[in-house]
């Protein structure tokens, strides 16, 4: 063969092979995800046994309440709304390689501003505009809250894991202070914000109790997924995440992108707070902190920051948390057992990943 006839890309011929490979990869991926989840259920079952609870009864209650009862599934789907917004925000941040762990602070500040503003706005403007403005304010407040970690990371290289976690402590406290002092409803004895009347909240879907916030959440996560995978902006963020030096070399404005990532991520967390208040709760009680922000992180990891997969895992998480609450009540298991379950899933998954890697290496021997 001469140099000239040496094969260039045989892209057409080989694309087919890479196609089948990805299909096998997807199958492998699913196995590697579902297998560990099953294993984790077994392990958690053993723990339940050890504390004297029938695991089958527990899982039965979880499924019955979280998934199969009409009321339960409606609650599950309603719970998904804020979780989806939070997941969307985390996908943006994680794909860009930035660990925004301050979701809870941003969520609560968004929730409190929405709770404070919505009841006022509905009295002075049309309902849809009022809700829209509340959403907007919640988003902006959360964005501002993320500015400190964002600027520190962008211009000083300060690790954002620490700063966002610190800001989340400050944020939850500030939210509390606001509820108890500035936005407190004078007409109630317990400290809480004024309550948004049920008829002014986000409409429910059809004849159910499911909030239409669910649709907003689904839209948010799908938009984020498309932006991250299909647009120039998303690609820039992914370059920053995958190889920051290549981002600098390619002439991307990394500090600006960093601030943008934090703003989007926090903004979505703020919207999550707003959608929970305007859609479901109607007000914020003092010391209220559902800690959704931290709970969603494992789901986003399990989904490997893929938007579609994240929807699935957020659904699972909702089933677990709604079902787990009820099962916990009925069987006397602490409410936090859902968290135990989720963390077992994570640990088993990490182990499975490790052994899969080892196995691949030795199998090729």
């Amino acid at each position, binding site marked *: *063969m*001469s*140099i000239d006839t*040496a*094969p*260039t*890309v*045989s*892209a057409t011929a*080989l*694309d087919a*092979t*890479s196609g089948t*490979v990805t299909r096998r990869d997807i199958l492998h991926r699913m196995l590697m995800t579902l297998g560990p989840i099953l294993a984790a259920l077994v392990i958690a079952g053993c723990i339940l046994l050890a504390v004297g609870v029938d695991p089958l009864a527990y899982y039965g209650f979880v499924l019955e309440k979280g998934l199969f009862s009409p009321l339960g599934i409606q609650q599950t789907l309603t719970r998904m709304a804020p979780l989806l917004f939070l997941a969307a925000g985390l996908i943006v941040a994680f794909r860009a390689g930035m660990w925004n762990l301050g979701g809870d602070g941003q969520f609560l500040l968004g929730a409190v501003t929405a709770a404070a503003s919505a009841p006022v706005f509905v009295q002075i403007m049309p309902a849809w505009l009022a809700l829209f403005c509340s959403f907007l304010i919640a988003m902006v407040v959360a964005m501002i809250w993320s500015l400190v970690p964002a600027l520190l990371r962008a211009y000083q290289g300060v690790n954002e894991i620490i700063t966002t976690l610190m800001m989340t402590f400050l944020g939850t406290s500030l939210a509390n202070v606001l509820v108890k002092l500035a936005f407190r409803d004078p007409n109630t004895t317990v400290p809480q914000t004024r309550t948004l009347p049920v008829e002014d909240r986000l409409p429910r879907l059809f004849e159910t109790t499911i909030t239409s916030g669910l649709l907003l959440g689904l839209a948010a996560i799908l938009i984020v997924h498309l932006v991250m995978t*299909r*647009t*120039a*902006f998303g*690609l*820039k963020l*992914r*370059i920053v995440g*995958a*190889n920051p*030096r*290549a981002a*600098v*070399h*390619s*002439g*991307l*404005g990394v500090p600006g992108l960093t601030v943008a990532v934090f703003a989007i991520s926090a903004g979505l967390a703020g919207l999550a707070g707003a959608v929970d208040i305007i859609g479901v709760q109607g007000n914020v009680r003092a010391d209220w902190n559902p800690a959704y922000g931290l709970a969603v992180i494992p789901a986003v990891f399990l989904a490997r920051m893929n938007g579609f997969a994240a929807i699935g895992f957020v659904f699972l998480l909702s089933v677990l948390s709604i079902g787990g609450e009820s099962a916990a009540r009925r069987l006397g298991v602490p409410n936090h057992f859902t968290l135990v379950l989720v963390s077992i899933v994570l640990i088993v998954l990490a182990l499975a990943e490790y052994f899969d890697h080892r196995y691949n*290496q*030795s199998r*090729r*021997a």
Partner: protein
Amino acid sequence: MSSLSSSSVAGRDIVALEGVTKRFPGIVANDSVDLSIRPGEVHVLLGENGAGKSTLIGMLSGLQQPDEGRILVDGKPTPITSPRHALALGIGTVFQHMMLVPTLTVAENLLLGGPWWQRPRTEELAARVAEITSTLGITVKLHAKVSELSLGEQQQVEILRAMVRNSRLLILDESTSMLTPKGIDELGALMRRLVEQGLAIVFITHKLKEAAAFGDRISVLKLGRKVGEIPPERFRALGEQEIVSEIVELMFGKQKDDPEAVERPVRTARAGTAPLLQVADLTVAPTDNAPGLSSISFDIRPGEILGIAGIDGNGQKQLAEALAGQRAATSGSVRLDGAAIETLSVGDRRRRGLRYLTDDRLGEGTVGTFPVSINFFLKQVGAAPFWRNGVEQRAEIDKRAAQLVREYDVRTPSLKTPVARLSGGNIQKVLLARELAEGAKVVIFNKPTYGLDLANTLASRQRIRDTAARGLAVLLISTDLEELLGMCDRIAVIANGALVGTVENADDARTKVGRLMIGLAA
């Protein structure tokens, strides 16, 4: 030569490969390869980009496992299960792409892998390093952080690391690609001394003259298959020229007298035209372990190629980065086509027509996990026609990428393959294609042909000449003096961050540059 002594010990192979096959999705990287590696021999492994050389040594060093066939160590079939295992077997490897931990110091990197319960033996190491470096004729800054070293210096650390471990078999994958001619000769002499002590060496290179000068035995790979071998007896019988032409025949099936014969550059003397790139008093502050730049000044006219010669690590990287905008300059001016650009960002300088081909292709040149197709356009994200209104145009990207792949002969299973999976030379082709594509006025090439095989090296040099002939200004940074002599109009020599002299590339340029490089006046 050691060849006489070697034939007496050569009876047994230290390591032998038998029918080793390795497949990757869409490609057979090694196809039942047999190889015998003997003490007292420098075994040269040759082959085009993507022929499967690095894959083969990946299996020898425990990074990968063969799909078929087996590896014999001291005559016994031994699966080499991990890099640690390979080291325990006495196989030390210098990989093509750097494997040092950038956040650690050189000394810490050299001490890595020792037993975790022992305190690192720093003094012992220093003594041992001093011994090796003095025979090698290199200096290594033990306490410098690896991330502050140039790639050439990192390569020296890698060689040192393999030698500190007392390997019986030393594998060097393109370890001369960043050395100066003098450094290469020193490495050759060192290899000779080592094989005389009974070591075995596997030496991968794209420079056929090195193969002929340093080798005892040559194996040639092509498309994963071993297509030929020159055993030591024949090797000794042939002269350098005959060896080179035999290799060329084996590799490319084509006869060429002297493949690297230097065509004198066609002088496109455009003395009258205004310079396209003017650099005046460019100064960069030094860091603890990296030189800065001390008032660098030069002009490049349209159509001109200015070479920068010098030992790697003398400020070449700093110069290129300061020009491209990646490194802050403390003072000085850079004018492109008359307009000052020293305050512009990296992206803005690129939009003005400045291109920078980095020598760090995996570190900053590409995003390894992204597909080949996207890597072609890393510096154009958002630009039409590949993005419209910010939305990715898959079809446009793939069409253009396929075109570039064909034009630059990038060997890849598909456009979707993550770029880090390509062979070193093929990644380099992706970078070249990216920087040479439309819109350029001034191009900075940092070691443009590093890692390319002969055919691609020649093609790329021709492309660079064509670039200049189109009226672009070219700054060519290289440690390869032949390359500079073959292509440049003028050659400047850099030492310790300063240009110590510039010579016209006339007949006596070689001696003048050589004198400048060792610190004499030209």
